[in-house]
């Protein structure tokens, strides 16, 4: 018990929590945007891999860190456009298209990595984004600007979705595409834009890991973070504020299990601690399921003139 209090009293713990949360916040906002427009995007896991890879490769090739972030966003957007073409244009199954994109983006990234670095065993590193010491706010100033970006995007996305005509259009095509079309909103264009932008956020989420956290690209570095984001969106009932809360909560337990494990309480195998975040995700899904207000048109393809 005292160990637990020691952990919680240590600022390093809260710094770690916010750091772990950052890619989850960005990824969850990305999924949220897609789903608000009525499209599930299971491509996130692969898009995060691709963003992590291209962002890192850009910086490794000698371009600036922010160019890397931009390239990661563009990479995400390109895969997003592919997903949009398959699910909005051709009305294929959103589940299957998303899984296909995860496989494709992951395979392309790993292939690209191996072609670029055929012989290396230790991944080459880059100089990552620096912490914002100039900010002078405890815990936050130990983070890199991408964390600040993620935190600022939460109210921005909430405002755009809830308070602007653009956000209304996005929510309408996610709830009732027929009515949106009747209002003169192009369902296809709105959905495509939302998926491209959401996927760009997923790409940036991936690039956080290489450009801000680990300063190198590893195989399996995303390791299910994308899937967690998909769960977090349901937990958040498709609301950006709750998405932030969910990501922080998940990161809290993730950082906690790591420290409990290090504290060496051997009465439980360390794998049990690692399971905690996943078990809590499932529990959260069950708890919110009853009142989960899915966007009504989620996973329903829309074809003009068809009902």
């Amino acid at each position, binding site marked *: 018990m005292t160990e637990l209090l020691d952990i919680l009293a240590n600022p390093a713990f809260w710094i770690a929590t916010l750091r772990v949360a950052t890619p989850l916040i960005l990824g969850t906002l990305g999924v949220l945007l897609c789903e608000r427009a009525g499209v599930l995007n299971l491509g996130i896991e692969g898009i995060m891999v691709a963003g992590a890879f291209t962002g890192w490769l850009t910086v490794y090739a000698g371009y600036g860190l922010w160019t890397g972030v931009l390239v990661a966003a563009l990479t995400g957007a390109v895969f997003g456009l592919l997903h949009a073409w398959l699910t909005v244009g051709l009305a294929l199954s959103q589940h299957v298209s998303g899984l*296909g994109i995860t496989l494709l983006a992951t395979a392309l990234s790993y292939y690209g990595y191996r072609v670029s670095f055929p012989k290396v065993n230790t991944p080459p590193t880059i100089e990552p984004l620096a912490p914002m010491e100039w900010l002078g706010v405890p815990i936050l100033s130990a983070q890199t600007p991408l964390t600040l970006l993620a935190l600022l995007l939460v109210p921005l996305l909430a405002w755009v979705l809830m308070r602007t005509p653009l956000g209304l259009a996005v929510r309408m095509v996610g709830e009732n595409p027929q009515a949106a079309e009747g209002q003169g909103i192009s369902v296809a264009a709105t959905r495509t834009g939302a998926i491209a932008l959401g996927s760009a956020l997923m790409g940036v989420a991936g690039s956080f890991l290489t450009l801000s956290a680990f300063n190198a690209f590893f195989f399996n570095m995303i390791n299910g973070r994308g899937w967690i984001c998909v769960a977090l969106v349901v937990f958040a009932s498709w609301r950006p504020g709750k998405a932030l809360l969910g990501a922080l909560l998940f990161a809290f337990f993730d950082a906690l299990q790591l420290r409990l494990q290090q504290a060496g309480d051997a009465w439980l195998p360390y794998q049990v601690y690692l399971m905690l975040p996943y*078990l809590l995700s499932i529990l959260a899904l069950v708890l919110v399921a009853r009142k989960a207000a899915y966007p009504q048109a989620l996973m329903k393809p829309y074809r003009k003139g068809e009902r």
Partner: protein
Amino acid sequence: MRLEKRNHTSPAAYVLAPVGAVVFTLLISGLLVLWAGAPVGRTYALLLQGAFGSVFALTETLTRATPLILTGLAAAVAFRARLFNIGAEGQLYAGALAAVAVGGMHGGTGLEWSPYVLFPLMMLAAALAGAALLLGPALMKARLGVDEVVTTLLLNFIMLLLVSALLDGPMKDPLSMGWPQSVALQGDLELAKLVPQTRLHTGLLWAVSLAVMLWALLARTVPGFDIRAAGANARAAAFAGVPITRTVVLVALLSGGLAGLAGAIEVAGRTSYVTLDMSPGYGYSGIVIAMLAGLHPLGVIAAGTFVAGVLVGADSMSRAVGVPTYIADVIVATSLIAVLVAGLLTQYRVRWK
């Protein structure tokens, strides 16, 4: 761009669509081969040769195809009922663990029953373990509306951690010199070799027979009809008197059971114990295979062999010309998307305007 339903699709189109998709995939992937600085034609020739070009290559491909066909069937039957089971990977490990729990030697003190009793018991335990892992998500979907994609996915991670914990502790092989590896299966429970001097085992016959049985079940029986009806339109099916909960449980038993059997058959036919890396993602590949097969159980045999061939062929090709083996995953993923698009184009006409 808009889609128009075709009034008529020629039978030839159904055959040509997947062929065209694979040709398209090979062309696109060819660009990546060029990027790696290898001659495209020779690379593909080596890949084909490495997959099917000799008795050894063929047996390796079919050995790899065995778990892929089983996980492919697991995905196909679930997807038919619109239960998006993404958890075959975890279910495979659950089956493998159950197989070793029943049929393992446990330090030489394994169950001393006749293999004729123990073997079916082992397979049954594996199937039930896989099914049990899917039953929770399936019922949560049916009763509470919890999205099964996310729950089955998360269970994969939980299951792998459980395997890791068990291989460190209760199920660890005392003779493994510290490797995380389970106790070994009793020798008399291992599957016979199909071709002597190779790794190909009778598990392939299991996989093929199960595919045929599943096809017969889906095409010819009332529960099979219920599964297809629940998938086509759950609300209409419930209205028409299809027992939805019973069908969901049946699908979970079939899908999870097949994935569990994949794990047991891998243990009994190839590895003889459980390790953390016994499956290089067979559960996930099964989803692709099911989609490539158009969710048809007999098509799964062909699709599973195709994917296994690409994976095995890429291994030996990579050693010869130095194109990274990840090209296999690119080919599989691209062909999945291309086959989906090609399948759509057989039913719809694209109008540009």
